[in-house]
């Protein structure tokens, strides 16, 4: 676990609208450039699961998913992730156009909920906070 410090913060963003993915990528442009954050994208839940494959351990730290997508919904994706990966469990943030789904999302195991239109500044703050927290925690742990 020592090498987590050296390892970059690996994120997976899922949204059926490509422009949303563009926004997220550009939001973390500098961090990605510096190699502090590694970002992968998927256009739907199926693609995301393919990407994650069948591996038992999870090197992705944060999954950022839209809820309303054609095919499998973000809620169902969270359920699958929570069932399949617990070593270590990844953080999952979900985004929806409807506030009303926040409770449902949290009940299936989402760690945070953002509404559309997405407040990018807040998202960035939350992600960087999480990143800092994790590193700090690891340092203390050592």
């Amino acid at each position, binding site marked *: 676990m020592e090498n987590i410090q050296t390892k970059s913060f690996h994120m997976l963003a899922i949204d059926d*609208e490509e*422009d*949303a993915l*563009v*926004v997220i990528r*550009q*939001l973390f*442009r*500098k961090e990605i450039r510096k190699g502090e954050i590694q970002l992968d994208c998927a256009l739907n839940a199926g693609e995301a699961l393919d990407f994650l494959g069948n591996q038992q351990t999870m090197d992705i730290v944060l999954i950022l998913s839209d809820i*309303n997508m054609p095919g499998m*919904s973000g809620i169902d994706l969270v359920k699958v992730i929570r069932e399949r990966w617990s070593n270590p469990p990844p953080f999952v943030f979900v985004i929806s*156009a*409807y506030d*009303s*789904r926040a409770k*449902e999302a949290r009940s299936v195991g989402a760690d945070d909920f953002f509404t*559309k*239109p*997405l407040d*990018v*500044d807040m998202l960035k703050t939350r992600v960087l906070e999480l990143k800092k927290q994790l590193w700090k925690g690891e340092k203390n742990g050592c």
Partner: protein
Amino acid sequence: MTIKTSISRVLITRIVLLSSFITLAFTVFQVWRSYEEDLGVIRMGLQRVETTVLPTMAHELWVNDLKTVKFVLQGIATLHYVAKAEIMLTEHDNQIFSHGTEAAQPFVRVIPIKYKDYRDQIRHLGELRITAELDGIYQNLWKRSFFILGVNFLQILIVAAFMMLLFERSVVRHLRVLAEALHEFNPEQESKEIKFPQMRSRQDELSVLAWSFNVMAQSMRRSWLSLREADKRLQALHIELSKQSERQKLFLDSMPQHLAILDAKGDIIYVNHAWITFAKANGYEGETYGLGVNYLEVCEQDPGCKTIVRNLEALIGGWSHDFIMEYPLHTSDNEYWFTLRMNRCESHGEIYLIVTHTNMTRQKRAEQKLQKTNDLLRKTLREQDNAFREIAAIVETVPDVILTTDHLGTIEFANNRTELIFGYKPEELISRNVNMLMTSPHREEHHRYIKQYHQTGEPRIIGTTRELPAKRKDGSIFFIELSVGEFYIDDEQKFTGFIRDVSKRKFRHAYIEDLNEELRRTNARLEERVLERTEKLQQAHQTMVQQERLVSLGTLVAGVAHEMKNPLSFIINFAKLTKRDLEDLLIELKSEPLDFEEVDELTKGIQQYCQKMVEHGERASNIVTTMLSHSRSERGQTWTQVDVNALLQEYFKIAHHAFRAQHTGFEIKQCLELNEKIPHIWGAAPRLGQVFLNIINNALEALANQQDQESVFQPQLKIRTEFHEKVLTVTITDNGPGMPESVKKQIFDPFFTTKDPGKGTGLGLSLSHTIIADEHKGKLSVKSKEGQGTTFFISIPLGKEK
């Protein structure tokens, strides 16, 4: 009857048989006893030998004195019942000594010979075998049994013979006498008393029997005698009765009435002479109305006799007791009337009906004559009465006053109108002079007028009508129209006067005018109100239609708002990124050395952001345009070429978004089967959009309801377009709960809704129908079954430019 088997013989035979059996059994028992006794004697003897001789013999054998033993043996053999005595010596090689002869009927007894030696040990020396002869005993037994049997039989026979004799003499003989007496008994003759051959002083059963018989015979004889007496009296009575009956018959035959007597079944059991004569005279043979015929049946066959049948049945049934009917019987040459009388009598539990027909012709004729005169009289009276009533009614109904006076002007009659017109009641006027109703100067001059008329005969007022002033009871003066006439009753002159109140005529004309005016005004007001109401109703309808449009606009706005969120969010986010990256770029440009790669990337990024902002801006703008076009309320929509596929996609998206905004977690399997080859049609896009929105929205609501009820339900919405023979058809199908026939019939009716009050206007589908059928000349129809979903068909013809 003769005696075939005598009682005494039967008795004796049975006694002999029973006694013989008992005797036999007794003899067998005695013989067996005697055999046992004889055998007992032999056993005792042998016992004695065993107790007396055996110890000595054992001792002799022990000391081996065989001679003495043999001697003793010889002694035993000489006993009278012993045939043979043997001894077998065990100690001397089973040596046997015997004495005597073999027995014919042997009875053997073996006795062991034991000796107790000095050591008190029992020694077995041998055994003594004694054979006794039973032959003598048996012979003795036979002899004895024959004797017993013989004696007993003899005894039985003698007793039986005696018994037979005694029985014969004391019982059977008397019985025979009794039988003979009974056999000869006849109550018609004096019978003999039973006497037994010998005087029997004893009061035994037989003598009591004989005595009883004698008593019975006597009483029977007496009964028979009294019976014969009664019979004689009865015969006399019968003769008397038949005489009486004959007399009665004569009496009945002499009656002028036709009389028949029926029994309870209605059969005629008697008819009198008049009946027969009448029947014959009228051509009825005896069989039709004669004896033995059922009167009820005869009457039933005659259709004119229904009343008689009904009453006859009532009489037979006991519901009534008599019946009287008058009936005519008209022959070709004469008319007769009869009275039918039927009476129900009960005698000794039997029911009889007495039917009489009385000829009433003479009475009837007299009655008829009287009736005719009466009728005529009554008719005349009635006519007069009616005429009078008619006149009286007319007189009382006439709106004018009618008076009659005598030749001097004294009022004799006045109708009720006087009260209304003059204020006097008719009775207040009668017997007073008519001038009391007049004003001066006529009042004073009236006498003179009449006098003048009488003298000259020239009428002044008679036969004309004149307007005059008159005076009421209260003294007020008013104008009347007066007509006077004259008439005579029994040469006495009378006058009639008709008086009409004319003072109200003018006033009435004015009143009618007023009424007409009022009516015209009311009519005008009513018309005004009708117009007002119609306008209000039209406004209300307009408001409802507008409201429905607002509802669909509301749906639209909810959907559009969500649609707008997305592009706006992108614009904001890309703007933020642009701002940030521009700041970065400025910093980068000022730094040394210049990182070209970074600058290039930032610039390209900003370019991209701008491009994206433009794209999303346009997207938002489009949405707004759609909404605006939908919300335009003018009816005269711009008639354009419409791409129905695009319209459907757009409105489906809006409806879906709007619906999801209100229903959490509602997911739907959508299926758009839009045929790309369909042409554009001429129509009003926003109006069509309103229809699509309405139908899709209804479908979504039905699906959401179904899902609320069953969580496993998979909502599904299918939209198809196709083009066939210049008609474009849109099919919108959901797999929701469908609707019952009753709902289906009404869905296109205005204000019909299945939603809760306040949730729907009930105008959606009605308006849709108007839009498709009236505005676009198309067809809107629905196919649905409960539990099998609903399908809406929207057919629109290609149309033309307007």
